[in-house]
């Protein structure tokens, strides 16, 4: 196998690594820096060091209410997206959904879907069908966006698995439910875990749909951050952002401990 890389490609690859390091990691570091600033204004580089903005966030009812809503929403979405997406993946893998090939293509859609247009349409559709939006609306919208990722990660795991395992279990006397529980589910676990992780993050961080579907009492954390920035920007926004980054990193560490990051990354 060729291990060397043509110099031109190597140069471009390094440009990409440098760009990513600077402009993907950099912004996050800036946010973390601002969060421990003493200043009342959002400014970089930060002046002084204090944790006052963390105190402000943790003492703010609106922040806590928004965080609680976001957390409930993300957990609901993780659950529904993993359940439905996992089931759909098994059905697609076994070519039991109509036009499974087309379905697989279709599941690229979230990446292709103009979110802002989708959010607008969802608002109009829901209002026309069911009246005012609620947590249920956000749950449905996020599930529909997130489940395809679970489908993809689970399909990737299934593609690498032995297609004869379930049949083998049948010849060993395992009935339907036993096969589902003892063979199919364990096979899917790494894909489901990766998909669940994506679904949680996607819902927890999603801003556009939530922004369109907001109303008093239905303000998620990203929407609250956005409002705060628009109307009274201060480093508390950076503090809550840092907490959100920490949650994401913690989730990655947990998944790595349980499953090994390689399994998840490759799915």
């Amino acid at each position, binding site marked *: 196998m060729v291990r060397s890389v043509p110099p031109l490609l190597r140069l471009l690859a390094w440009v990409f690594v440098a760009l990513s390091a600077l402009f993907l990691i950099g912004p996050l570091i800036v946010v973390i820096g601002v969060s421990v600033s003493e200043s009342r204004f959002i400014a970089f580089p930060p002046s002084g060091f204090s944790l006052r903005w963390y105190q402000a966030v943790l003492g703010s009812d609106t922040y806590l209410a928004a965080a609680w809503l976001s957390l409930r929403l993300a957990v609901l979405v993780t659950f529904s997206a993993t359940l439905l997406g996992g089931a759909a993946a098994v059905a697609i893998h076994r070519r039991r959904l109509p036009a499974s090939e087309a379905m697989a293509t279709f599941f690229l859609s979230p990446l292709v879907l103009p979110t802002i247009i989708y959010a607008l349409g969802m608002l109009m559709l829901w209002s026309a069908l069911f009246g005012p939006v609620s947590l249920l609306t956000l749950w449905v919208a996020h599930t529909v966006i997130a489940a395809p990722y679970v489908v993809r990660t689970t399909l990737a795991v299934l593609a690498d698995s032995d297609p*004869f395992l379930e*049949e083998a*279990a049948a*010849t*060993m006397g395992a*009935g339907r439910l*036993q096969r589902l529980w*003892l063979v199919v589910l364990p096979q899917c676990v790494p894909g489901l875990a990766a998909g669940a992780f994506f679904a949680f993050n996607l819902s927890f961080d999603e801003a556009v749909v939530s922004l369109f579907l907001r109303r008093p009492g239905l303000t998620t954390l990203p929407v609250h951050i956005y409002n705060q920035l628009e109307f009274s920007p201060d480093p508390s926004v950076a503090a809550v952002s840092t907490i959100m980054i920490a949650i994401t990193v913690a989730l990655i560490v947990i998944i790595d401990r349980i499953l090994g990051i390689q399994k998840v990354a490759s799915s």
Partner: protein
Amino acid sequence: MANLRLRDIRKSFGQTEVLHGISLDIPSGAFISLLGASGCGKTTLLRIVAGLESTTNGTVEIDGRDVTHLPPEKRDIAMMFQSYALLPHLNVAENVRFPLRMRGIGAPGEQRDRVREALETVQLGHLAERRPRQLSGGQQQRVALARAIVSRPKVLLLDEPLSNLDARLREDMHVELIELHKRLGLTTLFVTHDQEEALSLSDHIVLINEGRVEQEDSPTEIYTNPATPFASSFLGAANLVAAVVEDGPGGPVARFEDGQTLPLPEGCHLRGPVTLALRQEDIGLFAADETLPDGRATLRARLGTRVYLGARNRYVVHLGDTRLRVLSGADRTLEDGGTVQLGVDPSRIRVLPAPDG
């Protein structure tokens, strides 16, 4: 341990019928091979016996009970897959114990004993705690075998279980499978495309060609008396030569396209165009001026390429426009390109109907 009876099994996928009515009667404790090229339907037949595939027509009976419409988990069988199909999230002992758990055979303590015994049978007692992915292909194969025999199924189904092993390991497994079958006496159905494997292992070979039983017999019988050109070329890789049978002064003779003739055994009743099946090892090679041993008929041919095989040589010889392969001992080496005599014992010639007549 039970007998297995198939009655007129037919199977269609969409418009294509892949099994055209197969009936088999397999006595208790027999080791039967389903032998055929890939795509001949042998695996489909095995899967029908397992209950993994439905039948379009026909019945499957195990031990006198009609199981045609039972799902696989309700049939008292075990099957070994080509890919071994070990459960990757369970260790070796848990894999082997799986059929006992599923079928509710024995208390946990007894299950553990049977697992240990099965693993020791395949000499893997020391690897009970490993995960399948930590094992070599040969070891995985043994775990799958242990898992298949641990529940002492009425019928053991083996789907090309040795095809992923290398030649040396396969040769060892042949001996072990024979010894295992002698000891346990499980009714066994073995699917393979490898004629040597079928000859080595079975009490009885069912040769399948394009969804039909081509010939069914003991290994010795099917090898020495193949009934059709297909059987001849599949078993033992015989040379098939077109000829015309005529009545000569001393009995029937076969005339080849280059005009040479070969006496045939007395018992040959076919006349007209035929196919002669001549095994590679039944043709003797002699120098052009040599005197042949008694009883051998002779044909003149041109010697082609020699392939050295160590213990033997394989020669390509040209009889008119037909290429024949001949195996001969490594003791004598003949000159390339010259004329040679082929010495054939008429009793070793199989005369078969020509493909289109």
